[in-house]
């Protein structure tokens, strides 16, 4: 296809943001409409990717490769494969949802929408970048609008939260920058070519010692973003203070960048180190699963609860990635999408009652089902999806992850599976306290059920929730080849390194032998 479709999709929101710059800020309706049209348009033109995606090739598709900074070998190289395809689509979908969800933002709507659209460009860019430098640029770029979204339109402690968010993420990612540069020069030494092109760097065989440090540098960047225990503390704060749409994007897309980074970069670039780090990551992931769930259980604030539940869910994703088999990996990718949908929806739902009641404390609610039956149904479905009820989306991903984990390490699987119990505990307990029981708080008696706009927000997500739960094949089949390719790639490189290690050992042994023999000869002499 000659049309640079990825570029169009990625930069259309930016174009929209620039357009909005020139719209009079007083005209709120117009601004909202423009933003919505851009988001809808973006989503619609991203849909063909799904249908035109070729299932039988592991190559990247819809590739565009233009030299950007020739002097450094930096190119605007974008493309998607089965791994990024869905995250890409999820991003355009969730942004659309978010813009619609922000309809009631009154305060400085223009800047809000601009930030939102720029954010979309940044996020989309992250998922399509096939150039390390480009990736890093997008990775950092989306920090700014997110930072503003939380900081300007957030709750009372927004400044603390947003700075924490920014600095946490930045602290992780600068080390990655150093690592990227190191890889760049390593590649130069190996091939004599200055390039940041990921596909070329994939062929690079990084020495084991270096892999360790480089992996660690990437690890911090991604682990903070995921966020893995114990780097997660920015998340609850950021979620609680962020406006609804911010939370949705944060949970739905931003966190996935971390896990995506592991899949796209850490694994294929440092296969040996990745294998070496499995115990650490697995234990952290498991700790995250259990810890996140336990802490979520005792939260008093709905958003915080959902935030900690994200820590738990993302633990599954991490675990799935680091078992190096197809079920784990596909489960993880699917789980990324699922988490994006269900947690995103949870934040939407929380946002809806927050808009009505201006509180998120669980204690302030109770018995809402009586007043908001439709809301209750959606809430229930999403809650169950988050719990991982079979037949809904959450289960498929979670189960695949667990199968993958089980194949490699039973203990990990057993511990991770406890998350299944715990998730039911905190979600249902929360659901009970919010939706069930007697409606006692007089404030809640005036609550209105969801309106048309909110229907429009929740229905598509719910449909997807069911679709992925019941018939995930179209999704899994699209990632199959890519995931397989990735795993083979990792495996082959890992084996090469192992062989080298073996040879080195043998050589060392041989050298020792030789030493002994020479000593011997000396003695003879």
């Amino acid at each position, binding site marked *: 296809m000659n049309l640079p479709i990825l570029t169009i999709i990625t930069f259309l929101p930016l174009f929209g943001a620039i357009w909005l710059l020139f719209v009079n800020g007083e005209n709120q309706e117009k601004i909202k409409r423009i933003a919505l049209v851009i988001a809808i348009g973006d989503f619609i033109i991203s849909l063909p990717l799904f249908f035109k995606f070729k299932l039988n090739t592991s190559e990247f598709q819809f590739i565009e490769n233009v030299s950007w900074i020739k002097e450094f070998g930096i190119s605007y190289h974008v493309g998607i494969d089965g791994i990024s395809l869905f995250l890409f689509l999820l991003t355009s979908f969730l942004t659309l949802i978010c813009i619609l969800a922000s309809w009631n933002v009154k305060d400085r709507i223009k800047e809000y929408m601009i930030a939102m659209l720029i954010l979309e460009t940044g996020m989309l860019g992250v998922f399509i970048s096939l150039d390390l430098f480009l990736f890093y*640029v997008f990775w*950092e770029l989306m920090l700014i609008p997110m930072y503003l979204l939380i900081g300007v339109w957030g709750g009372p402690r927004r400044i603390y939260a947003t700075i924490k968010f*920014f600095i946490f993420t*930045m602290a992780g990612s600068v080390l990655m920058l*150093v690592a990227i*540069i190191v890889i760049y020069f390593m590649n130069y030494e190996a091939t004599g070519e200055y390039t940041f092109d990921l596909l070329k760097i994939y062929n690079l065989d990084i020495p084991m010692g270096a892999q360790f440090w480089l992996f660690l540098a990437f690890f911090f960047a991604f682990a903070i973003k995921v966020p893995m225990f114990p780097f997660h503390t920015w998340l609850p704060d950021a979620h609680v203070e962020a406006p609804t749409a911010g939370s949705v994007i944060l949970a739905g897309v931003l966190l996935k960048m971390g896990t995506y980074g592991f899949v796209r970069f850490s694994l294929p670039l440092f296969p040996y180190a990745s294998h070496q780090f499995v115990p650490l990551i697995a234990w952290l992931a498991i700790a995250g699963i259990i810890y996140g769930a336990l802490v979520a259980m005792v939260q008093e604030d709905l958003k915080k609860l959902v935030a900690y539940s994200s820590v738990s869910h993302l633990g599954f994703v991490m675990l799935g990635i680091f078992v190096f088999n197809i079920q784990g990996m596909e489960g993880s990718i699917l789980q990324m999408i699922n988490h994006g949908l269900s947690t995103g929806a949870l934040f939407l739902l929380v946002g809806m009652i927050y808009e009505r009641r201006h509180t998120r404390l669980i204690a302030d609610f109770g018995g809402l089902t009586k007043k908001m039956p439709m809301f209750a149904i959606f809430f229930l479905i999403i809650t169950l999806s988050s719990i991982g009820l079979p037949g809904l989306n959450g289960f498929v991903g979670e189960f695949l992850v667990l199968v993958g984990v089980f194949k490699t390490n039973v203990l990990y699987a057993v511990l991770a599976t406890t998350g299944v119990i715990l998730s039911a505990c905190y979600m249902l307990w929360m659901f009970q306290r919010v939706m069930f029981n007697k409606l006692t708080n007089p404030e809640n008696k005036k609550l209105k059920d969801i309106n048309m706009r909110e229907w429009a927000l929740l229905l598509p997500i719910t449909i997807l929730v069911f679709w992925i739960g019941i018939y995930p094949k179209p999704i899994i089949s699209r990632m199959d080849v890519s995931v397989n390719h990735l795993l083979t790639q990792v495996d082959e490189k890992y084996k090469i390194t192992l062989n080298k290690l073996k040879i080195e050992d043998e050589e060392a042994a041989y050298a020792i032998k030789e030493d002994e023999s020479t000593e011997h000869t000396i003695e003879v002499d």
Partner: protein
Amino acid sequence: MEIVIPPFDLKSISPILIITISAMLILVADVFFRKTFRDSLGYISFLIVVLTAMVACTQMGKTVYSFSDMFVVDNFSVFFNLIFLVSTAIVILLSVSYIKQEGINYGEYYTLILFATMGMMLMAGGADLLTIFLGLEIMSISLYVLAGFRRDCVRSNEASLKYFLLGAFATCFLLYGIAMLYGTTGTTNIKEIASFLANNPSLSNPMIVTGTSLLIIGFGFKVACVPFHKWTPDVYEGAPTAITAFMSVGPKAAAFAAFTRVFLVALPDVEQKWSIILWVLAVLTMTVGNLVAIVQKNIKRMLAYSSIAHAGYALMAIIAGGDFGSSSLLFYMLAYTFMNLGAFAVVIVLGRKGKENANIEDYSGLGFKHPLLAVTMCIFMFSLAGIPPFVGFIGKFYIFSAAIKNGFIILAIIGVVNSVISVYYYLRVTVVMYMKKPVREFAPLSLSPFVILALIITLWGTIHLGIFPARLIDLAQKSTLLY
């Protein structure tokens, strides 16, 4: 005895000549035709600078040694000349209304700025320590005056005095260092020093080592690296804002130009020693600059500390050395020129006569009162913090790459960690602008077409060069030192 008149290669110093002559003409014009020119001196100097820049551009691509090898025109110096001229031009744009508002609209203001620029160009093109010293002094003396240009303002006086005393003090060290090098090598010419050192054991010679160290003190003072940085915050705070802006970019770049040329061309054989010293200084500079910047309340002071920190990053480029190092320095300096001048431009726009409003808290709520200005400021702040897609990011990236390429990975890591710390105080400005309620009424902005032009240029530089830096990088790579 035959008297040979050496060739006068005036073409090689044409930019300097133009600036010098026009600076003097402006002085004359101000004295004799004050009425006629009063307001137009600014435009005239701006045009002169632009003209000089065009002339300077034509010098690109060739290497000419002139005046008995005392002066050199090579891509390195041309590139630096362009940096100086760009910064001077922008500062003149910022000054036109600023000095009027401050009531210091005297013709010698422009003359001094032009002289300072001339000094910088001399420094960048100096192939002899004497030329470099001369350039340095011409630049410094002009700046001493400029710093105290608001002569009825005590702070300005104080800034001037401090700058002057300490500057002269530091110059003595520089000179003593030069003397020592001269004493050992018998020459002050950079190339000759280099060849002398290459042929003689230099590392064990205490004179050379001491001389090198003394040079570090002298240049270190000018680039404001810790522990010779202490004048910076005070002078930056007290000087007229436009001059602060000027000082933070042009003279700093000039000092780096001389620093780089002397250390990379003349003293590569002592690199083993000075690179370690500079390594420590760079780390100290970055760290102290950033840490203290965090607790600043005055934005000019904060920017002063930030400029100290940036000097630390730039030092990394010198330490890294090689083509990559010097080209990254070139790029970084230009990048820094744009973003820092931009930030100061916003500070100037928000200032009033007698009331600078330079406390960060004064910016509360700016984001809603003057959204465009706030966005502009945000962009500069993010760029200074090194966040893509702005030019500051590419600059830092370039420098870190250079450091890593030459094996200074730990230095690079310290550098990036520092840039995270720096994020904190840059963000605070944006936090105040966007996330705090206004604490005061905003007076109408002191916007004039010139300031707007300056803002547009700096914005363009910050954004455009951030997204499409390829050509500039190409240029910088072609402008590395020609040995």
